[in-house]
């Protein structure tokens, strides 16, 4: 499957955190993804962009914090994260970039 332009819109960036490192031990990679994407879209995009087989995708939405700025109440944007588990034998080096 070749990469298409909209694939790049789905996946924003890889997340490199302590939790992500822990997940990588089970063959999973964590990405920040577009808020309006769904699991099949994410699976397609990861397979196309990194050339790997995806076993499963779990997503979660982290709600943005409510913040005050000069007394006005504002809200930070929500972020969707995807925990992408790869089929055995597949790896993604997240720290090198696309």
């Amino acid at each position, binding site marked *: 499957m070749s990469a298409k332009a909209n694939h790049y819109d789905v996946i924003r960036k890889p*997340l*490199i*955190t*302590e939790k*992500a*490192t822990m997940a990588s031990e089970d063959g999973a990679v964590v990405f920040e993804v577009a808020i309006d994407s769904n699991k099949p879209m994410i699976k397609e995009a990861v397979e196309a962009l990194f050339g790997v087989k995806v076993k499963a995708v779990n997503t979660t939405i982290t709600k943005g914090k409510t913040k005050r700025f000069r007394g006005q109440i504002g809200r930070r944007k929500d972020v969707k994260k995807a925990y992408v588990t790869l089929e055995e034998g597949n790896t993604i080096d997240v*720290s090198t970039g696309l």
Partner: protein
Amino acid sequence: MQVTETLNEGLKRAYSITISAAELENKVNEKLTEAQPDIEMKGFRKGKVPMALLKKQYGQKLLGESMEEVIDAAMGDHFEKSGDRPAMQPDVKMVDGETWKEGDDVNVEMSYEALPAIPEVDLKSIKLEKLEVKADDASIDEALANLAETAQDFDDRKKGTKSKDGDQITFDFLGRVDGEAFDGGTAEDYPLVLGSNSFIPGFEDQLVGVKAGDEIDVKVTFPAEYQAENLAGKDAVFSCVIKAVKKPVAAKIDDELAKKFGAEDLAGFKTQIGERLEEEYAGAGRAVMKRGLLDALDKLVSFDLPPSLVEAEAGQIAHQLWHEDNPEVEGHDHPEIETTDEHKTLANRRVKLGLLLAELGQKAEVEVTDAEMTQAIMNQARQYPGQEREFFEFVQKNQQMQQQMRAPMFEDKVVDYVFELATVTDKEISKEDLEKAVEALDKE
């Protein structure tokens, strides 16, 4: 790590050091493990950054550092094992510097000149003459006369005698610019030595040839760069009333003069001068003896000298001499100076004696203590009145400066030490002979 000798010729040494990739990596890992607990990174709690990530982030930077350290350690090891002491900083270069990449073994070529082994010197066999000069009455009197001249008095001239250059006149004056008196332009009974240039140019000249009781107007122009701005460049008229004209007289050598110099009476002053003279002679005698010692040492021992040191020294001598010959060139932007054979012989001697003295000092554990160092710095600081503090701090912060001051002190102490061991015979000579000996020193 492997060290192989590639050159061993005279004092020249060259080695090739091979450091395996694994060794280098170990070093990097070691460094990372050490630093890990203190690293903070976004997304991780402090000290929880995984090793793999750290290596990716900081590995490159640490690699260079580790390489340097490993090579340094290898060199240090080598010097310890072989007992060689390099004459200068060893020349180190990587064999495949351009093409080297991570994971390769590191090949380093190191070359240096070893300091020669310095043979034992039997210091007792050195025979020296200590020149001693007693300050005799004649030279004390001479010194006294010299002092008296500097402390000249002035005596009244006969009435009506005209003043001459060098005379002291006492006079009142009132200065006016444009008919107005100005600040600092008046004085009464002012003693002025003609020709002493203590007044503005032209003033003293016009007072030559006056008599006591004269009243004259002195017309002068203040110089353009006069310190008082309102007067600079203006014409001024000074009306002067001459009160007395005095001629210079050499001070009489008596108790009065002695008191002027802070002594009790003339006899005491004479002993003081005698002591000072003898101190001076002792200093000169020591210089002669030191030269004798250095000559003796020079003859006594011989060993190979590291050519790079000799060349550096010869270059420096040539450079210095060139500057003395061409005082008009202040900077260092002149062509390369050729060293001649003469410079080289001199350099040879200096390097040899320098090495020898350093070795002797080290063996005898001669050291310049901090207290002595501080003393020396204080002495130097006194040359900069008002800025002693700054100078003191400057020296304390400046390693090179300290080194520069420490070196001659060390040399002196070593020389003292050798004097103690060597066979020294006292020899009393006359002042003239000592002077000749000192002159002979200066000629070389």
